């Protein structure tokens, strides 16, 4: 756990009070909660200074009124750090990190497709997973959309257009 603690220490001294909370639930796992405003600096620092070169994925979670965005970054393929913050559903804008980590390009599009998080500065946010005919503003992994509703939507609206 020495390595994990050292990483947390360095991240703390870099981000200061912009690092809201940090936990080490077990070996090789770090959960860190940051303010949205420092996302790009934090990612830049993690990737280029602390050598978290690999991005495993980006997860979006609907928390009710807000959406939590979690960046899973890996140090030397080993220690997995989850960098996370929340955005409101009304204004779900987040700056892109694709210019820092190119590997994030599809993960950002995926979160955009399913939870409607807008990644400002992303080169192309066209649908990646959902069909072109998918109704605007319906983000299937948000909790307000129940499974039955989505089923009906896909079978009727999309189905008709596709036929």
């Amino acid at each position: 756990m020495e390595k994990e603690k050292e990483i947390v220490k360095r991240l703390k001294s870099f981000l200061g009070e912009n690092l809201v909370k940090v936990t080490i639930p077990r070996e090789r796992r770090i959960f860190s909660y940051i303010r949205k405003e420092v996302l790009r600096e934090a990612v830049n620092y993690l990737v280029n200074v602390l050598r978290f070169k690999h991005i495993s994925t980006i997860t979006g979670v609907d928390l009710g009124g807000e959406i939590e965005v979690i960046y899973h970054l890996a140090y030397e393929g080993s220690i997995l750090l989850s960098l996370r913050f929340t955005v409101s559903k009304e204004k779900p804008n987040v700056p892109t990190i694709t210019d820092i980590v190119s590997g994030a390009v599809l993960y950002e599009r995926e979160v955009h497709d399913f939870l409607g998080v807008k990644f400002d500065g992303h080169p192309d946010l066209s649908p990646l997973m959902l069909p072109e005919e998918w109704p605007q503003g319906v983000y299937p992994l948000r909790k307000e959309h129940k499974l039955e509703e989505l089923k009906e939507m896909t079978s009727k609206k999309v189905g008709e257009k596709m036929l």
Partner: protein
Amino acid sequence: MNPCPIKIPFGPQHPALKEPENFLFEIEGERIVDVKPRIGYNHRGIEKAFECKTYIQNIYLAERICGICSDAHTTCYTQAIEELLGLEVPPRAKYIRVIIAELERIQSHALWIGLVAHEIGFDTLFMYVWRDRETVLDIFERISGNRIHYAMNTIGGVRRDISSAMVLEIKKSLNHMEERVKYYLDVVKSERTILKRAVDIGILEPKDAVNLGAVGPTLRASGVNHDVRVDDPYAAYDEIPFNVITHEDCDVLSRILVRCEEMHESIEIIHYALGYMPDGIIKTEIPMNFPEGETVSRVEAPRGELIHYLKSNGTRKPERYKVRSPTLGNIPALCRMLLGGFVADIPIVLAGIDPCFSCMDRMAFIDIKTDEKWVWTMQQLRRKFTNE
């Protein structure tokens, strides 16, 4: 030379394989100048489905995320739940998980080598490898009753034991497989048909591989020594000695060699695990209550790093379950490999990352000037590009 702006949509339909995908290629002459991936044709809403089912039902759902690496997904899923519950899996179950995972790696890599041989028109090798792959599927049938979807994992352990009679049979089959893998390595290294189509094709520089988030054999064929089994050990991998295979040449041949040698390494791992498997129970009791919390679970699937994220809200159903399969991680790297290459190399480079799809049967060509569309079959393409 006046470049002719032609866009080639590649895919998405393929009747035989799952996960169809579409790539829009922009070409100048024979060179690829732009690639746009479009995926999701096989999107089934599994993450939403996870939220609507109980943890027990979700074992069956996780098994069905993928047909080839079903065990990787259930291992990842059960690990996430076990970490949430604070369960310690019995040592024997950990070894059985390793054995099944490595058997799965062998059959998955064998399937892939067959497909690659087929893509470059070397059908003899394709038939040899797929015949030998049956050896591994027979082992699966002996252990679990199923050739695929072996359903071995459950929360707290595994569902079936491996008896001492089975151990002998498995070892015998593995010895046969080992001979065959040696033969494939010989063929791959010396056969002109393969070398001509695989050397210096689909280059992925190590720097790009890391920055684009490549995983698994694709990453290791660019000389980057990362493997979840070593970096973030799970099951019994921290007790078993083995080598991580890397190759430095960054081309399709490297990807073939990495997988061939990994098959050999997997056989060694299984032999070791069968020999050192401790006695005891194979499953612990699971508590009735699932606490609130979240876990991130990682597994080295045959195609690379697989990651699952679980958020529990204290009920019997997960609040959020996220799956990122290795193929998605490799798509940006794949696009990089294709850039600057020849149209004729698209199939082999695409197949090179071992994607869960193959849209090689049918391509539609669109001439922008006349807006004329036509479709070539794979046979026509092969005739054009290989002078068959």
